């Protein structure tokens, strides 16, 4: 098999740098697997390991520091047939830690080669995530205070199904890299090497000491039995095949005549969990069955089941511009928090306005009719009260008709509409 090395761009590493050996080892590994240049994408990180893509005549993608695995993921998902190899230094594994963990957990068929030389070569020999505490680095005493990361143990804990830890000087490294690339799924190869440009100036490290260090650590040489599972991309495609397609937006026909041609500004006030937004949506759908244009602007806090929930619904014959409500025609109040949040609204009600409020709420003064609804007595659950208030409104034939409400419920809850209609009691007695 021909070499995939770029004849025009020979490696330019410092003399004695193990990156040069690894360039050759990766080339031979791809050769052993018989991969063609156009079937391989080399994704490289930043630093000296980030130069790798320029030495090969394969597809190449050189991006930002620590992010190589993110590009590789998109590329592999887009083109499953492509052999994707990522080269990264021990710096990249530090800054890109989240991506590393995600790659291990996800198990896309990508091979990650970590060119681990225990420091940042390119920027001045600063400490990295794998620098031993007793090393002398460009980061002063800081590495003495930290614990170095065991990349392989971390990968295993994160679910990597294939992990190898080798010295850059091992003779059969090409075969080992080839095995990792050939593995279907995420494979990680942690290759310990030497950076004469920076690290060995102040630190004693040799092929022998690397071999000795590695032999003192837990061995990693291939499949991790407990992490063996189906490759993510294949699993994704298989699962996606059974996902039901999203239907186009539902078309709602205008079939009823609404009770009034006047624009209606309805504000629903409640507490989170009272299904205020759902009630607002039902009101919108009801309006649309009456041929009205609608908008629904919602306000709530980030807490899911606490705080106020406010929905402003406008129904109009004409296009609605501003979606807020300055003067409501109807206020539905079922929760104290919503009332408190919009207490200023009440005094702005027009004389012909209407407030439908759950009995027991504290309401501000207001210049229009207030109708109290005895939900507690009728044992209407808090989460159904906004909907129940809509049915009161419908029975008064105000804003919406009963037919419009029924149609909206059928649209929103096709299988439960009749049950809901039954549970909203014929309330309240006039």
């Amino acid at each position, binding site marked *: 098999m021909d070499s995939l090395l770029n004849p025009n761009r020979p490696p330019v590493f410092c003399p004695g740098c193990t990156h040069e050996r690894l360039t050759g080892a990766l080339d031979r590994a791809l050769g052993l697997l018989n991969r063609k*240049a*156009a079937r391989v994408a080399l*994704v490289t990180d930043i630093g000296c390991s980030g130069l790798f*893509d*320029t030495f090969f*005549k*394969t*597809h*190449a*993608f*050189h*991006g*930002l520091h620590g*992010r190589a*695995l*993110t*590009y*590789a*993921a*998109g*590329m*592999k*998902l*887009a*083109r499953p047939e492509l052999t994707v190899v990522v080269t990264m230094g021990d710096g990249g594994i530090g800054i890109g830690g*989240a*991506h590393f*963990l*995600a790659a291990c957990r996800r198990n896309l068929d990508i091979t990650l080669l970590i060119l681990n030389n225990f420091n940042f070569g390119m920027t001045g020999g600063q400490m990295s995530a794998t620098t031993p505490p007793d090393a002398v680095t460009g980061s002063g005493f800081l590495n003495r205070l930290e614990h170095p990361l065991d990349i392989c143990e971390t990968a295993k804990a994160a679910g990597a199904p294939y992990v190898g830890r080798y010295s850059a000087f091992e003779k059969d490294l090409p075969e080992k890299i080839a095995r990792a690339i050939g593995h279907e799924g995420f494979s990680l190869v942690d290759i310990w090497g030497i950076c004469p440009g920076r690290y060995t100036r102040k630190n004693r490290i040799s092929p022998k000491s690397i071999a000795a260090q590695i032999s003192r650590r837990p061995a990693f040489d291939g499949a991790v039995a407990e992490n063996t599972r189906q490759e993510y991309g294949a699993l*994704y495609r298989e699962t*996606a095949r059974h*996902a*039901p397609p*999203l239907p186009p*937006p*539902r*078309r*709602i*026909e*205008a079939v009823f005549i609404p009770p009034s041609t006047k624009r209606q500004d309805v504000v629903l006030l409640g507490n989170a969990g009272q299904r205020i937004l759902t009630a607002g*949506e039902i009101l*919108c*759908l009801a*309006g*649309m069955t009456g*041929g009205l*244009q*609608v*908008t*629904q602007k*919602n*306000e*709530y*806090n*980030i807490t899911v089941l606490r705080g106020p929930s406010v929905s402003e619904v406008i129904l109009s014959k004409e296009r609605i*511009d*501003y*979606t*807020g409500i*300055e003067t409501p025609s109807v206020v539905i109040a079922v929760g104290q928090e919503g009332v408190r949040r919009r207490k200023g609204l009440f005094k702005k009600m027009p004389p012909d306005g209407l407030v439908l409020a759950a009995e027991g709420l504290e309401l501000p003064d207001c210049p229009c009719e207030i109708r109290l609804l005895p939900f507690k007595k009728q044992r209407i659950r808090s989460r159904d009260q906004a909907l129940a208030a809509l049915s009161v409104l419908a029975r008064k034939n105000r804003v919406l008709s009963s037919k419009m409400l029924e149609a909206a419920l059928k649209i929103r809850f096709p299988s439960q509409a009749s049950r809901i209609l039954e549970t909203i009691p014929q309330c309240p007695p006039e």
Partner: protein
Amino acid sequence: MVHCLMDGNEAVARGAFAAGCRFFAGYPITPASSIFDVMMRLLPPAGGICIQGEDEIASIGSCLGASMAGLKAMTATSGPGISLYSEQISFAVGSEIPIVIVDVQRLGPSTGSATRGADGDIQFLRWGNSGGLPVIVLAPVDVTDCFRLTQHAFDLSERLRCPVFIASNKEIALTRESVDPEQLETISIGKRPAPVPGKPFLPFETSPENPVPGFLPIGGETVVRQTSSTHGIDGYITTDPAQIQDFRQRLSKKLLDAVDTYTFFDYFPSASKDLLVITYGVTARSARACLKAFGGREGPFSLLVLKTLWPVPESVIREKAEAAKRVLVLEMNMGQYVREIQRVLDSKEVRFFGRMNGELLAPSDILEACRHG
């Protein structure tokens, strides 16, 4: 009469799908998450890919990888996520990677208020990349715009090979509206330019006719290089100042020269020409409501609604402001785009009215601001 009920986020997702987007990656964030929800239901059944990144950086990173592999890609987030995207955005700008980025703006700074709206990222979107080269930002006003402009975003990002932003706002994204399905038209989406024929492929080679480099996907039959480093037409690092300068010039010019071809706006003239109100996004609706209250043409101002915010559509701004004595810029922030209007209309009196407290500017606020103008 038939209508659909939809919010802005769903319309963005459906617009993207209609434009041929087949890769989406996002990280959960209010108020953008429902774009992910809809993409998750749209893409996998259609053979596309939708994933949840381990963070925002990963989300946009995987989009860049997928885009270079030939798919149309989109991501969506809010202000805090745009901050994290920033370095990848610079990459997409400098290395000409097509991508659509949706910013559903929420009230900042920082974590701010996740569920309240603002237009606080308008300058951030423009300047949030290292190197300061131009980007395209489109600002929808309503649900129909979300559907339409997202398609235009794809068309532009593919043809010009650049990131294109949709500057949405919680108040559009999560506000439901009845929309006329007839208005949800699909547009034809341009393609990434083809490489110069009859020559060996160079990944950043352009021709005199087209300042955008020809594209071939990573993973295709021809080997392709992509790099975030300063590169020449061959995709290898260059240190030649002349070549570098040409490149930077081209990256600017390819967007700036064409802006008149993608200036989206609405103009509502009124009998009184003295005052021109300029605004964008959801605030445009409040301004329209003011005009409607006066029966349209009798309104106290003419209204220019910009939907292309960046590059600044200077021609249309100058043209519509020509007859005006005064200009009032309305924004849901503390005064951002007004700087551009002041720059373009430097001989006119340009004032600002806005606030950033999570509330829409109400029509009554705007009329009040006009009166004091």
